[in-house]
């Protein structure tokens, strides 16, 4: 009986303080009766948790008065913050909700090695594998009117023109731009800052 009373005492902490004493008194007297007529007193005590939880939820439900405009706004703000936090942590929702870092992100595709699902280094931009890109490149019928290539570099934003190539900040940066241009088979490559 002591263990069961201890359990009831712990569970009673869930019950709103205004109802706790009466709740405890009722469960104690019921438990005493159960012990006299049945051996299922532990199973009986398990119900106390559901009861206490119900009282806790019910008390919260009705203690929050939405009639006040300030509380209503606070409640809406809380809901919006929670929804925003959840959306910002879910990849698909984040892509839909947050503004893209890239201009016209819907028209962009990242060319990258195919490393399987979930390996996209730029999750908010569609990914095209090297294989797909080569197929497009070698295809006689071009599916696009024009293609513009961007490459992420470690250096500052620099741009090379086909006629008057501007110097790039470092040898590393120059090499990256050359590699990109070579890979894409273009004389022109626009590099953006990382």
């Amino acid at each position, binding site marked *: 009986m002591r263990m069961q009373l201890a359990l009831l005492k712990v569970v009673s902490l869930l019950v709103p303080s205004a109802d706790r004493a009466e709740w405890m008194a009722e469960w104690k007297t*019921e438990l005493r*009766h159960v012990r006299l007529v049945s051996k299922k007193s532990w199973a*009986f005590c*398990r*119900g106390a948790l*559901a*009861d206490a939880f*119900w009282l806790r939820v*019910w008390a919260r439900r009705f203690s929050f008065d939405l009639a006040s405009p300030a509380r209503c706004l606070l409640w809406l703000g809380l809901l919006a913050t929670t929804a925003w936090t959840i959306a910002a942590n879910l990849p698909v929702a984040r892509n839909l909700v947050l503004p893209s870092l890239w201009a016209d992100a819907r028209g962009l595709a990242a060319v990258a090695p195919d490393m399987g699902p979930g390996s996209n280094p730029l999750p908010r931009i569609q990914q095209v594998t090297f294989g797909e890109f080569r197929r497009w490149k070698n295809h006689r019928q071009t599916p696009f009117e024009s293609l513009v290539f961007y490459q992420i570099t470690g250096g500052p934003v620099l741009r090379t023109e086909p006629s008057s190539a501007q110097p790039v900040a470092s040898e590393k940066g120059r090499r990256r731009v050359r590699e990109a241009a070579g890979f894409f088979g273009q004389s022109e490559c626009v590099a953006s800052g990382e």
Partner: protein
Amino acid sequence: MAAEAKLSHTAAMILQAIGAGYGYGFSIMEITGLPSGTVYPALRRLEREALIRSQWERQKKADAAQRPPRKYYKVTAAGKATLEASRKRYPLIARLIPEKESERV
């Protein structure tokens, strides 16, 4: 006339048990076969909806029976109307939980 609250089958069974004279939690559990985790929260809800009311047994009476006082539940007037509606909705509950012998007039 206020519309009677629509009860679930379980809540209707509990209300029927109280109406039939099973006045405290464990006796309701015994007659309905429902677990304590269902019966007690349902009692709270029925009481909040004013379909039943509770009253602690007098200490004298409890002392005479050599036990702590019990909390008894009774069906209110609103509860009686709801119980009638529930009996029409669930005709079997009255047969499942007949009135206690001591409650019969």
